[in-house]
Each structure stands twice: as C-alpha cells, then as structure tokens.
C-alpha cells in the first residue's frame, strides 16, 4: 500500500514543477466559464426560465461542469508512452500491481488539481459568477459521493481506451473520439435538459450520464430523494461493469504484449 501512496505523491510533485502552467490552467477555466455564461445570457435574454430551468441554476450547472472537467483530467497517454518506449517491460517486472500503479498515479494528479486548481477556481467562481450553494447539506454529501463515483466511471472508461494501446500503436484517435463522446453525452457542455427526449433516453442507457450529469443534478437538488439511491446504485454498477471489462482487456493485453526494447 505504501508504494502506491508514494506513486501518488510522485505524480503530485511532478505536476508542481509546472507552476506557471497550473496558473494558466486556472485562468483558462475562469475565462471559459465566463464566456459560457455570456453565451447563455444572450440565449436567455428574453426569457427568465426556459422549460422551468432558472438562469441561476444553469449558471451553477455550467460552473460545476467546468470545475469538474478541471479535476477529472487524467494523463491520457501515460500507458501508451510506456508501451511505445518499451519501459512497460520494466514496470511489469516490479513487484507491484500495474493497474494499481496507474490508478495511484492518476489519483496524485487528481489531488494536485483539487488543491492547486479547484480551490482557487472555486473561490473565484463563487465570488464572480454567484453560483448557487448546494440544495442542502445532505445533498452536498451525496453530491460528493456521486462525484467520486463519476470520477471512477470516467477512469474505468479511460482505462479501457488506454489499454487499447497494446493493440494500436497510437491511441490519439481513439482518445479523441472518446473525449468527444464524453463531452457531448455526459452533459459536460450542455445539460441534458436541453436535448431531445430520444437522445436523453439513449444517454441514460450509457455510462456517460453518470460522469457529470448525475452529480450536478444531485447538487442542484433536481433528483428527488427517493431516486438518489437508485442513481448512485446505477453509477456503482457502471463502475463495476467497466472495471471488469478493463480487467479482462488487461489480461489479454499482457498475452499480446511484445516489448521491442526499452
């Protein structure tokens, strides 16, 4: 266990090295939130509430979605780089669990982003954009829980894509297509409220809604209390399902692996 804590710590320290980059990241997030709010303001110019969605709620949604994107970011090419350079051969010789290593590495990045990016960005957003507080304290706790599950859904999904680098030399295309699907289908850019019903019905059958939409709507108090347990359970099922697929792929990837040096 200690080894994994060290991996996370190392990832944290690696990121600290690029402080200017980190500040630029915060400024980027703030600008994009601001711009998005401007666009929504233009859309809402004539109407106060569209389909019962209040403007304030929408702003809160936009801010939360962007902040979550900030901390959900992962090192997409870590495994690919290891496979291509051959250094994965050395990693596999070490007495550690490789998937555990990758997870703790990304956890380190997550903690870095929560401390160095989320905290300042959140404070600025609360002051600048006047986002709504959580619906209630209970909802806030459930939101945090749901957000963790959302992160795990995204992580397991990402892991499956990353592992494909054992079969494909480059995963840029796959990662990019996956990102595009996540951005649209998870409600990261546009709340599912505004999508046509058929599309929403489809999205609810996929793991994507679990990533952004479910946690944020819990925060806003839009999910009735009696449905929250079901929503969380659904997230958990997706985590487990995707995790198992990832494990199976990992097994067959090991059989497939050819190290060209490293």
């Amino acid at each position, binding site marked *: 266990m200690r080894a994994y804590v060290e991996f996370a710590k190392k990832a944290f320290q690696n990121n600290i090295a*690029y402080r*200017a*980059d980190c500040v*630029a*990241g915060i*400024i*980027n997030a703030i*600008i*994009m939130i601001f*711009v998005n709010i*401007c*666009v929504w*303001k*233009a*859309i809402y*110019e004539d109407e106060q509430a*569209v*389909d019962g969605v209040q403007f304030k709620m929408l702003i809160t949604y936009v801010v939360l979605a962007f902040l979550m994107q900030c901390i959900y970011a992962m090192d997409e090419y870590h495994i690919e780089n290891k496979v291509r350079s051959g250094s994965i051969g050395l990693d596999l010789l070490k007495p550690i669990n490789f998937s555990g290593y990758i997870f703790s590495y990304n956890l380190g990045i997550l903690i870095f982003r929560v401390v160095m990016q989320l905290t300042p960005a959140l404070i600025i957003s609360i002051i600048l954009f006047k986002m709504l507080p959580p619906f209630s304290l209970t909802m806030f706790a459930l939101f945090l829980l749901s957000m963790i599950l959302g992160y795990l859904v995204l992580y397991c999904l990402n892991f499956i894509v990353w592992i494909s680098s054992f079969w494909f*030399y*480059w995963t*840029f*295309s*796959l990662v*990019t*297509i996956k*990102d*595009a*699907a996540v*951005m*649209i289908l998870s409600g990261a*850019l*546009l709340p599912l409220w*505004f*999508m*046509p019903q058929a599309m929403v019905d489809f999205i609810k059958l996929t793991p994507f809604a679990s990533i952004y939409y479910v946690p944020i709507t819990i925060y806003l108090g839009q999910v009735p209390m009696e449905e929250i347990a079901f929503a969380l359970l659904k997230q958990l099922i997706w985590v487990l399902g995707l995790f198992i697929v990832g494990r199976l792929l990992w097994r067959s990837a090991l059989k497939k692996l050819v190290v060209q040096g490293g």
Partner: protein
Amino acid sequence: MKKKPLYSPIEMIILIMKYAKLSIKSILEYKFDRVFITIAIFCREMISVVVMFLILTRFVRIKGWEYNQMFFLYSFLFLSYSVFVLFFAGMRDFDNMIYSGEFDRFLTRPLGLMYQIVASRIDLSAALGHGIVGIILFVNTAFSVGIVWNAKNIIYYIVILLSGAVIQASIFLFSACFSFWTYKVDNLRNMIFFNARRISGYPLSFYPGIIQKLLMFVVPFAFVNFFPAQYFLRKSEMSSYWNGFFYMTPVVAVIMFLLVYAFWKKGVSRYSSTGTAM
C-alpha cells in the same frame, strides 16, 4: 550586409513541391491511421457544432441570430483553419520542433528558416478533419442566408479565407515563440488560441466590451469570422462597429504576420538548443 540568396525563386518552388511529395508519401504510408485521425478530428470539432445545434433547436434564435447565420459565421473558422494547417502546419508544430531538436537541423541548412518550417510540413489529416466540418456548415448555409455569389463576393470570400489562415498561423506562431524561453506552451496556447477560437464561434456582440476588444485588437479572431460574415449578412448590430472593418482582414493578416515574424526573429537570435537533437 544582405546575403545573396543561394536559390532562385523557381528552385525554391520546386523544392516546396519535393517537400510536399515527401509529406504526402509519409502520410500514405499509414493510410488507415491517417484516416482514423481525420475521423477523430472531425468528431472533436463537431462537438461545438452539435452543442450549438442542440441549443438552437430549443431556442430557434439568439439575439436575432438564426440557425443558418450562426453556422455560416462558424464555417469561416473551420475553413480558414483547414487552409492554415494545409499550408502552414510547420508553424503549428514549431514548438515541438524546438522541443524535439528537429529545429537544430534547420539551422544547418543553407535556406531561410521560415521557408523550411513552412515547407517541411503538410497536415492532411487535420486539414480534412476541420475542412469537412467547414464544408458541411458552408454548404448548408451559404445559399440560405441570402448571399448573391457574384464575382466580387467570391473573390472577397477567397481573400478572407486566405487572410484568416494567415491570422491564425500568426497567432499560433506567436504562442509557439514562447518555447524559445520556456519549453512548455500548452496552456498558454489554449489561452491564446483555442479559447479565443471557441469564443469566436458565437457572434462578437454576445460578449461584453472587453472580450470584444480582445478579439478585435489582441487576438484578432473577429477578423477571421465575425466581420467577414457581417459583410455578407449585414445585421443591425453592425451599426455599432466601423464599416471599414469589413475590408480590414487582409490588412490585419499582414500586420499580425510582420509583428509575429519580428518577435520570432528575436526568439531565434537567442535560441539555444534543448540538446535533444538526433
């Protein structure tokens, strides 16, 4: 003292053709991979279009802008970006050339540095990925927003597209220049280029004054799409801007390029290698 160029213009053009042939050959070597990259870029770029589409199906019009007009405005960004990566992909990848040490090789050759950078790359996958999005938007809107496609308008459009490509190339090169001083420019580039580009997807008049000023005079994306689109659409909000802006795009392109070129020269003169060449 000005050195006499070693090659005549005709030889330089022949050389560009040879470079292009090599680029195309290396692309054809990985046909499947390249097609897949094109599809991926297409998907990535379509995200913002789909979001806009979904918003517009709900709200029909925003601040007097209709569906067709919005997409017509957007198509400029994709088409000019496509032209940019087709001709100036080297300017896009320039920071990477420094990082990988490829730039050092250029220094040893008896040819202009900028010439080599521009000539050495063609990114067909990205050009197609962006270009297809642009063409889809253009074809769907260009004939429904009330434009008469006479000779004058067609020439105007072509000039705008090329100037837009030069403006985007200049902005890209500008952010890449910082890699002479620091070696990581990703977030800076997101800030200067990609955010500005995303912001320009919607009409300038949606934003508060400060953002409008930034997009006109600092990162001049307004001249890539907003004013050219207004030239065709002539919406009422144009009354709050100077009409001369319609024709400023080529001027902005030339000024931008000269400024950035000077900045780039300054960077080259203090360049020291990362030591990773070959």
